[in-house]
């Protein structure tokens, strides 16, 4: 399995230029809002979540990861008609978890990225459903088929998308 345990010194930390750090989440949000109108199946994807995982794993900083997650999540909430904070909380937890994992494991290859995204997609959905049902009292339906399908699809997309986004990385 490509996931390998590394010491703190071996793990490379990356940073991103300001335009990349701002534009990548905005483009992800824009595509997430625009494409489902034309391609209905696209609503299964969660591009903002993938961007959160990518930034968190690359930066390997828990504070940076959770702040990125919170910010992207809040922006995602703003486009819905539901209370602001549901996606915010879910993405904060994912950002914290992904950056914690990234600090300990080498998750730079395709297989590792697939598994990490699969895991954090599940975490995201569990947190989202818990908050939406428990705090906001939304009536949501949990469908195992839908969740597993979504997790596999997003994980496969992450494996490709992260390779493209690697071009924006800069060594810290």
């Amino acid at each position, binding site marked *: 399995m490509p996931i390998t345990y590394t010491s703190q010194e071996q793990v490379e930390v990356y940073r991103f230029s300001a335009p990349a750090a701002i534009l990548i989440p905005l483009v992800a*949000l824009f595509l997430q809002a625009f494409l489902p109108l034309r391609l209905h199946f696209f609503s299964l994807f969660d591009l903002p979540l993938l961007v959160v995982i990518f930034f968190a794993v690359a930066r390997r900083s828990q*504070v940076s990861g959770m702040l990125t997650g919170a910010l992207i999540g809040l922006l995602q909430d703003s486009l819905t*008609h539901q209370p602001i*904070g549901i996606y915010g909380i879910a993405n904060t937890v994912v950002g*914290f978890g992904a950056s914690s994992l990234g600090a300990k494991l080498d998750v730079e290859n395709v297989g590792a990225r697939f598994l990490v995204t699969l895991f954090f997609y599940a975490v995201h959905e569990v947190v989202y459903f818990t908050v939406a049902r428990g705090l*906001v009292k939304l009536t949501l*339906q949990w469908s195992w088929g839908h969740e597993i399908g979504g997790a596999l699809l997003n994980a496969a997309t992450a494996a490709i998308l992260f390779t493209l986004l690697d071009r924006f990385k800069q060594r810290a």
Partner: protein
Amino acid sequence: MSRYRNVTILVAILFVQVLGLAVQVKRRSSADESTRVIRLWTVSAVTPLEKALVWCQNGLGGIWSNYVYLRGVRQENRELKFEIERLRLEQVRLSDDAQQARRLQALLSFKETYIAKTVAAQVIGSSGSEQSRSIYIDKGTSAGVDKDMAVITADGLVGRVLRAFGSSAQVLLINDQSSGVGVILDKSRLQGVIKGTASGEVVVEKVMTDEQVTPGERIVTSGGDQIFPKGITVGTVMKVTPGADLFLNIRVKPSANLSRLEEVLVITKKEDRAPSVAETNSVRAVDILTQRLPSVPDKPPAEASQPSTPEGSAAPKRKDAAVVDKSAGIPAVPGVVKPVIGHKPTTARPATGAPPERAVSQPAVSPPGSSVPSQPGPSQPGTAEDKPH
């Protein structure tokens, strides 16, 4: 202490967001919910991009479909012409029914809500979440769009405006869980509430299990919610099963394709008014009853071709576009004879000054595919066609 620094920050961020959620959930119960600044910023940042992309897409699509890809246009044109003929014939029948309904409404001083003004808008984005079934349109407060305005398409109801920004607006679709529309079943006249489910289906609630509802029955808005005008098509009944708590579980197929919306109409102005007596050609109750009586033999053709009387030529024209008077100049279709209802001159005489339609007391002949009945049928009160949308 520094060991727990990050966890502390995590807890702090989560706590702030939970606090924010709690405040919003508490405030949602109040009627006046103001728009959050972050929502305004995000929408302002995303919608210009969406508008630009839709504009480019439409431009390229227009060039392709209007100048390049014209295969089958001739055949389509033939079919459309045939369809226009068929619809004209149907229009004659419906305008008779509508005119009769207006007369009755005037007699009863019956007030009805009319759609007075609509604004066409383009769909530019969605919420991006499966849990929030809402869309964004490219018209906002600057175009007269405001909160709680009904949104429709030619096929049927879409939803209502949830938030209006300067140049865009968020529309809550009828298949969202938090939406609710007062509806009436067309045949059985049962009233209910249409709601969305978590999986995006549309169901009618609050119909008792002892009521008779059949699949295929049309559902229209009841107008009771004061948001949607009465008579807008919502969908058709797909499946009826006994549900919980003595209510039926009625699944509905929405008339408008909610997953493929491109252009919509926002109803920006409604009017409550009753048809005036002048609008109905000064018809008295006795005139209506006369129509139901056996008809007097028709006048000879020479008399029928006399110029129209002032009564006929002065027939007032309504502003509403959906219900077109017979006086709007419907051309006669060869081989089709309009059925004679009675001896009332206004029913068979156009008011445009053109020679009056000849009334012949022989069986009506309809072309193949025509939906005009050979005998006058009963009026259909309550159907959407009777009402001007």
